[in-house]
């Protein structure tokens, strides 16, 4: 017994004696002592990541890290603007580097993409048009499980201009205005992957299983970004070291480790104990970040919590098949009865913005102009007037009734999501004040998204969020062609069942409208119908949160799908 206790004490002493410098940094930093250096930065994330093959990967955490090692022709910067990365410039019709052509009576687009002369893979092989052609070829294969296939298949043909391997003429299948938005169109290193695809491409999933990304994920030839992967342990961590062949500025930080800490409750402890130095946007929930921000102030810790309005739109989809919700006056009354300003202040300390429609303020298409969209400011009287007009009169218990039926709804959301549950309670109270009864019914996320919303099986209201991106046509959620039915295999995300012929027509025309101003006009037309007919109750736009050491410079949250790692080479700790 004594021996065992002794052993335990010895083990702890050994651990204490062998404590690494990395483990000391944050503690010391928190006390205002020694600082982090550019030798190493450890980032904590709470979401799982996968294999880094850019054609196959789909997890957010992988996207987050992918931008450190791989770049695309273009991207969106932190200001929300499209900027070139591997390309010298973004082709445009105005500049004459893109044109609409007619082939067999069908309009197509041809655009010339010129690659940076010094853009090379980590093994020194130049990045050429062939790498993009191979990406299209692999992605088009029926044996490869590519997620967003259209990104690649929209490009019909890639030819060399003037026999220059760095000057590529892309011919697009359709003449769409967003042809240049190739932020997720990754090149694939031909010198490594072509042989694999040739050998295994004819077998189902043969390419995925045998790709160098799977077999030798630290091969430097797979990467063209500021970093390369030096170590990858799925389910645990990824280590990045600078890529000496990177075309741009060499990164300041000599080693970045991204560590998976799946329990968000322990992220803070890991930060404070020095296991990690930074919590990424894929870490803390907003309430945790708000609580930690207070601790930083009260304990004078060397961290900063960043809040960045994002393109995530929290809202309630109304099931328009519900007989009470068919009446637009009831839908409008529901909207007028929500005090969104008070909601975001009470629950989020004003760190998230009230929403007015589906386009977020991070988007160039956003408008809050009352002349263009209908804005519903909190107005209890107007809500009551609309309900009175619709024939809903207050009953004995204050809840409105009509033809013997109570004005009662069920709001469903994901169980266990503390923020959403708080929002539910807040809304129940607000709607009760105008005589509307709302009951909460929550389900695990899998059931809620996998069954209830997908099959439109919610009785009246579904509270959740849409992740969007700037200038993203809302076709999948607004078009009546995307109302999920058994006939279409429950595909499409128009869970409301909203059908507006004019909106459908505008959305179809939007795809091919080349003039920026005209597109904005069209989107505003759609938003006008959306806010007039209220198929959805907008709630708030979510914010991204991250915790960084105060000394970290050049770190800027973006709030959209191209994360802050897009400019990882600018991060500096010294």
């Amino acid at each position, binding site marked *: *017994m004594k021996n065992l206790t002794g052993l335990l004490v010895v083990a702890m002493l050994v651990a204490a004696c062998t404590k690494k410098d990395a483990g000391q940094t944050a503690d010391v930093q928190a006390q205002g002592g020694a600082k982090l250096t550019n030798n190493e930065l450890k980032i904590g994330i709470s979401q799982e990541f996968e294999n880094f093959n850019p054609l196959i990967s789909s997890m957010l955490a992988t996207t987050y890290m992918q931008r450190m090692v791989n770049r695309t022709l273009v991207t969106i910067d932190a200001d929300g603007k499209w900027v070139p990365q591997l390309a010298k410039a973004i082709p445009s019709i105005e500049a004459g580097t893109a044109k609409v052509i007619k082939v067999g009576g069908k309009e197509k687009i041809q655009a010339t993409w010129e690659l940076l002369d010094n853009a090379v893979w980590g093994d020194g092989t130049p990045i050429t048009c062939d790498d993009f052609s191979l990406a299209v070829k692999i992605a088009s294969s029926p044996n490869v499980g590519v*997620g967003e296939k259209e990104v690649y298949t929209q490009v019909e043909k890639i030819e060399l201009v003037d026999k220059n391997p760095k000057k590529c003429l892309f011919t697009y299948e359709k003449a769409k205005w967003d042809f240049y938005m190739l932020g997720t169109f990754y090149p694939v290193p031909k010198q490594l992957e072509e042989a694999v695809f040739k050998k295994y491409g004819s077998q189902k999933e043969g390419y995925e299983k045998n790709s160098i990304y799977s077999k030798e994920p630290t091969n430097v030839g797979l990467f063209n970004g500021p970093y390369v992967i030096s170590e990858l342990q799925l*389910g645990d961590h990824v280590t990045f070291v600078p890529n000496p062949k990177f075309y741009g500025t060499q990164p300041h930080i000599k080693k970045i480790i991204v*560590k998976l800490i799946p329990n968000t409750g322990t992220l803070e402890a890991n930060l404070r*104990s020095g296991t990690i130095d930074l919590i990424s946007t894929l870490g803390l929930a907003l309430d945790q970040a708000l609580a930690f921000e207070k601790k930083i102030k009260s304990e004078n810790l060397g961290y900063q919590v960043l809040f960045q309005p994002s393109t995530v739109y929290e809202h309630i989809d109304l099931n328009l098949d519900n007989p009470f919700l068919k009446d637009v006056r009831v839908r409008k009354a529901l909207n007028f009865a929500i005090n969104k300003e008070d909601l975001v202040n009470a629950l989020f300390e004003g760190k998230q913005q009230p929403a007015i429609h589906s386009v977020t303020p991070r988007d160039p298409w956003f408008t809050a102009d009352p002349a263009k969209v209908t804005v519903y400011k909190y107005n209890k009287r107007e809500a009551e007037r609309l309900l009175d007009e619709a024939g809903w009169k207050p009953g004995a218990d204050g809840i409105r009734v009509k033809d013997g039926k109570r004005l009662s709804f069920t709001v469903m959301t994901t169980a266990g999501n503390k923020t959403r549950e708080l929002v539910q309670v807040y809304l129940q109270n607000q709607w009760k004040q105008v005589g509307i009864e709302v009951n909460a019914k929550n389900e695990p996320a899998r059931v809620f998204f996998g069954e209830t919303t997908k099959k439109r099986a919610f009785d009246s209201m579904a509270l959740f969020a849409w992740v969007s991106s700037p200038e993203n046509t809302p076709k999948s959620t607004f078009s009546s062609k995307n109302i999920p039915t058994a006939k279409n295999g429950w595909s499409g995300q128009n869970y409301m069942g909203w059908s507006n012929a004019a909106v459908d027509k505008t959305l179809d025309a939007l795809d091919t409208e080349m003039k920026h101003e005209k597109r904005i006009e069209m989107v505003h037309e759609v938003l006008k119908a959306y806010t007039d007919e209220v198929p959805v109750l907008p709630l708030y736009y979510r914010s991204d949160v991250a915790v960084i050491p105060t000394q970290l410079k050049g770190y800027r949250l973006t709030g959209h799908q191209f994360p802050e790692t897009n400019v990882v080479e600018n991060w500096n700790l010294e």
Partner: protein
Amino acid sequence: MTTYILRRLVQTLMVIVILSYVCFSLMTLMPGDPVELMISANPKITQEDVVRLRAFYGLDQPTYVRYFNWVGEIAKGDLGYSRTYRIPVTEMMGPSLKATFVLSMGSLIFSILIGVPLGIYCALKPNSKMDYVVNMFNFGGISLPSFFLGIVLIIIFSVGLGWLPAGGYQTTGMHYDSWFAEMLDKAKYLILPILSLSVQSIGRFSRFARSAMVEAMRNDFIRTARAKGMSEKVVIWKHGFRNALIPLITIVAISFSSVFSGALITESLFAYPGVGRLIYTSIIGNDFNVAMISFIISIAMVLVMNLVADLLYGAADPRISYK
């Protein structure tokens, strides 16, 4: 004996086949599929993509067809491809199984080494002060949720004292000069998870050992052994402890069967890349291949360890025979 073992092995195989179909069917009953996860991560995935991907992964096929396809691949020696991690299952599971084995075995051995001697000591000195103290510790340990204990340990030893890392498997990016340095580094990361897992098991083993030993020491043959003038050591270990072994074998065998199943909460809390977390992620992500292989390993371990326990009963007690 050989016939008995063979019969049990055939039964084990049959149970594995039946349960694998049940598990497979239950997984297909869960709402959602991997394609839905892709949609949630990428708003630009189109309706056509969804239909194509479901067909590609065979998610549009009936359950039995998918099951037989999966069994067919297993029979060919291909454990499949992880939809979540996008690599072959074998490459994914190997390191996780190893990590979990180290953690679970470490905890099991530590718990047995502490719990069983404590229980025996208390059984030999029932109602003593030590017995009361150990009992109190045991009940406390059994009642304390491991996630709570884990957080407390992290706050004390990682945040407060800074002695031990808050989570992980090894110092990331570290290159070891010797196997001893590697072992020492990894051991440091194991202390808190093992402590968190063991407190409950120590209580359980100690309680079982105490009651089994108290029961054994009450038997007439113990009195006879003492009357024959045998030393107390022989009485306790040869006559008492051997008879107390049967319930202990059962509990140890059951605990042993879970060494490859992982400890989801502890692994998540301490960011330990074990198989428990892998199973959870694969179930949530509808990653059939990984989840099914994990289920089969768990089922096989339970069945095999039950067989081992049955065989050990015979070794511990010669009155039990297998014909």
